């Protein structure tokens, strides 16, 4: 195992990862005084322009929050994702994709428990006079958001009807809006695990307690953000995918939480209550509407000494949200397709959480790519998200948009597209016919096979393979300069 891979597997916390990023020139400290609005947003957006190389930014001089720190952009570039995966800066997106795809089912989870008294997360505890606006240096993420949001919180909860089942414990990222010093709303939909648990609690009258973790092991945000089976533990999955141990402890309200996170907010849902939530600038780059969402009352907060509040800039792309979830949106679709169709060679679902996806496939027969596209629409993520699908041949790298455009230009006939009307749609897609219902588009940009008479018998075959890859790297290294 090389040194970078070893370092990545030794990460146990956000702090470890920030130290690694800083060494690599991928985390910077912003010491200049900033106003919470609009300065934090402005700096985060400026950094997001460099999807390949943006650093994490630690703000340590925020007006009105003396001594407090906020970090944005921890997962804000492919270079940061590469370092998290134990690969060097400059690793291509395609290589990162296969790094993640190759880890699928590759390792076992390593979960250990730390007694609460020894867990760094519980170093400081607040049980009365809780004021989240004071503890967290929050900022308005987009100008017309309805309030102050936590955009990168991992929320852990137990199934209210089966609270002792470790696997049915859910960990997911949900947006939270502060609704007073010790209250917040949580936005979810019925099909998400948290939505199921909220509805179960309200149906049965059972309490729903949650633990909101902020400033977490960077692997959790990457690997717990994607839907897996309801009865699979996100902690176990994240540990297996990182190939590294994960340390858990108990929150004060009895939920398994990461022992080394920065902050945990313990809260209980107010059964049956709803208050106005939103708008919130969401990943399609448009604002959600205002809706009535479940409200939670905070019962306690634990945090490390001098905690770092981690948040995100999300909105019209490219943003940290895209690098955070892009690869791990793509990899499950790839794995699920290959169970039926080993001809699938790569899946790029980086764009707006997979609202547009590009799939490369070895055409088995004429029209086969369309069959694969229809299968993609029935994968768990595809059901709601894969709105536009571009199918390309295996000789086209779906992560290289120049190649994809070549395929669109030379291998697509205008009558070789499929529009599927009135399909399920993710409710926040602004192009939906009505929220939750819209059309799907499949563009078959693969070349024609018999019995189609067109064919492509006289292709230019430029040199490819390891030698060309090495030459490409050599050219980049000869350019000199720094990555920053």
């Amino acid at each position: 195992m090389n040194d970078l891979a070893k370092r990545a597997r030794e990460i146990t916390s956000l702090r470890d990862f920030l130290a690694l990023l800083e060494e690599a020139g991928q985390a910077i400290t912003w010491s200049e005084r900033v106003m919470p609005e609009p300065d934090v947003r402005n700096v985060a957006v400026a950094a997001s322009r460099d999807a390949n190389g943006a650093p994490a930014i630690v703000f340590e001089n925020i007006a009105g929050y003396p001594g407090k720190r906020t970090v944005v952009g921890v997962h804000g570039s492919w270079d940061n994702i590469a370092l998290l995966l134990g690969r060097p800066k400059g690793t291509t997106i395609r290589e990162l994709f296969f790094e993640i795809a190759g880890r699928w089912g590759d390792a076992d989870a390593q979960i250990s428990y730390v007694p609460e008294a020894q867990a760094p997360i519980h170093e400081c505890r607040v049980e009365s006079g809780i004021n989240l606006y004071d503890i967290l240096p929050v900022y308005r993420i987009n100008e017309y958001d309805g309030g102050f949001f936590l955009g990168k919180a991992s929320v852990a909860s137990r199934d209210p009807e089966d609270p002792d089942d470790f696997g049915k414990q859910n960990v997911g990222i949900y947006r939270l809006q502060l609704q007073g010093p010790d209250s917040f709303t949580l936005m979810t939909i019925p099909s998400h695990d948290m939505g199921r648990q909220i509805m179960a609690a309200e149906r049965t009258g059972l309490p729903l307690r949650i633990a909101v973790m902020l400033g977490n092991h960077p692997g959790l945000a990457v690997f717990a953000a994607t839907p897996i089976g309801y009865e699979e533990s996100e902690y176990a999955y994240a540990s297996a995918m990182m190939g590294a141990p994960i340390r858990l402890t108990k929150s004060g309200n009895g939920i398994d939480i990461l022992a080394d996170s920065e902050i945990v907010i313990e809260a209980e849902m107010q059964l049956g209550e709803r208050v106005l939530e939103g708008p919130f600038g969401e990943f399609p780059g448009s604002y959600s509407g205002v809706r009535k969402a479940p409200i939670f009352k905070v019962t306690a907060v634990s945090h490390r000494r001098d905690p770092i509040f981690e948040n995100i800039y999300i909105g019209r792309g490219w943003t940290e949200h895209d690098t955070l979830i892009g690869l791990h949106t793509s990899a499950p679709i790839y794995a699920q397709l290959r169970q039926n169709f080993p001809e699938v060679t790569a899946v790029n679902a980086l764009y707006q959480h997979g609202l547009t996806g590009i799939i490369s496939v070895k055409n088995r027969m004429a029209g086969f790519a369309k069959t694969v596209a229809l299968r993609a629409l029935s994968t768990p993520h595809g059901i709601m998200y894969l709105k536009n699908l571009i199918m390309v041949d295996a000789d086209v790298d779906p992560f290289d948009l120049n190649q994809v455009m070549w395929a669109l230009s030379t291998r697509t006939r205008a009558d070789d597209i499929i529009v599927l009307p009135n399909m399920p749609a993710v409710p926040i897609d602004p192009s939906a016919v009505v929220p939750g219902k819209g059309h799907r588009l499949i563009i078959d940009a693969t070349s024609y096979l018999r019995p189609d008479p067109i064919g492509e018998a006289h292709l230019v075959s430029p040199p490819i393979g390891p030698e060309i890859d090495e030459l490409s790297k050599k050219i980049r290294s000869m350019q000199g300069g720094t990555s920053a």
Partner: protein
Amino acid sequence: MSGTICPRCSSSDAVSDCQGMEDGTVIWTIYRCVVCCFSWRDSEPPSAIGLGVRSAAFAVDAANLDHYPKILQQ
């Protein structure tokens, strides 16, 4: 009630939730409207919190709160 006017719904029922302090000086105050749940910091630019300056597209009609959908209905 403090009498502070909400820039989103124009109700005068906003409460103060937090003050940012530095060396005994108030740097900003966070307010929350108990009618429409909008919250803001008084140091934000007028485009976000200025009554009559904010984009009308993001206004909330305090007299018509019933039409906002409730999520996760059984």
